[in-house]
């Protein structure tokens, strides 16, 4: 490949767009007359470049409008059901609900931890004898420790303690 061929390849876009002028244009034109390879290349490139400037054009298909109308209809119906007030309220209350859910989770975790602690307070020998239901009953009844003597809660607590003994 000669220097002239390299110059043609380097300036192909400018050549086909007619942006080369003056001495440069003369130099390239002289070369194209004597170099069939470059002349062919410029011809092919010109065709491609012209093709690029005549892009493919299509018309919308029959389903284009109907598809769009369905989308719009679905959007309008959804918007009607969830009006701006409801949507606004949703946006505001969502963080509040998330915080409440988090607090509920923390509280539930704390309560479950309490049950576990109560279970650990039972002496090891007795622990094996306590079923999960029994453990919860024990936990529940323990909360009646401060009830007055002779009350129903005191009676049931004493019954439970006797059974354990």
């Amino acid at each position, binding site marked *: 490949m000669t220097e002239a061929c390299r110059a043609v390849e380097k300036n192909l*876009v400018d050549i086909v767009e007619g942006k080369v002028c003056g001495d440069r244009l003369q130099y390239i034109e002289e070369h194209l007359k004597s170099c069939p390879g470059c002349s062919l290349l410029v011809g092919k490139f010109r065709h491609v470049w012209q093709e690029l400037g005549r892009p493919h054009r299509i018309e919308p*298909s029959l389903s284009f409008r109907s598809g769009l109308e369905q989308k719009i209809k679905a959007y309008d119906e959804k918007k009607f059901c969830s009006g701006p007030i409801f949507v606004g309220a949703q946006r505001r209350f969502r963080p509040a609900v998330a915080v409440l859910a988090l607090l509920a989770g923390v509280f539930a975790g704390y309560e479950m931890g309490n049950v576990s602690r109560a279970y650990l307070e039972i002496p090891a020998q007795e622990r094996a004898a306590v079923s999960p239901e029994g453990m919860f009953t024990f936990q529940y009844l323990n909360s009646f420790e401060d009830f007055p003597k002779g009350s129903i809660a005191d009676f049931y607590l004493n019954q439970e303690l006797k059974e354990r003994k």
Partner: protein
Amino acid sequence: MDDKELIQRVASKDQSAFKELVEHYQNLVLNTCLNLIGSREGAEDVAQEVFFRLYRSAKKFRHKSKLSTWIYRIAVNLSLNFIRDNRRFGGLQSLDPFLEKEPEMEALHLPSNSKSPEALLEEKERKKLIREALGSLPEKQKVAFVLHKMEGFSSQEIAEILEVSLSSVEARIHRAKISLQKKLIPLLKKM
């Protein structure tokens, strides 16, 4: 009806105004999407989404630019999103619009029976080359080049659509031309 009045009526959910908007811009939007995406199905999906977004967000149009600029901006952004999403999920299995026979194409070009088989084959090869070369361009260069060369926008108009500077647009177009030139030369030599 001028664009300002049209978009105001669309914002107030006037269906006849929206239909007029779609009638006026559907071909422009569809073909811009087609030139960026390269697939008829993808282009129609994106074009539908463009008009849906217009319907939904007409109130947000601030009239800082022309309505057509805004529409093209949405079309370009959604087309690029479509390309990225399809690249992520393993590419697009599309009918090549440059290769399939479209009845509209017969009106734009000479009827196929007037061309020799060799000429037709060469044309098909050329279109395949174009698709390959355009597909190899980086995104920003491709958008600027397609809008400039295929859609006929000026650099200033492209700068407004893409919300970048004029010099950025000109640089992208220039680099796209250089890239295409480099890509096409070896392919053309093989032909």
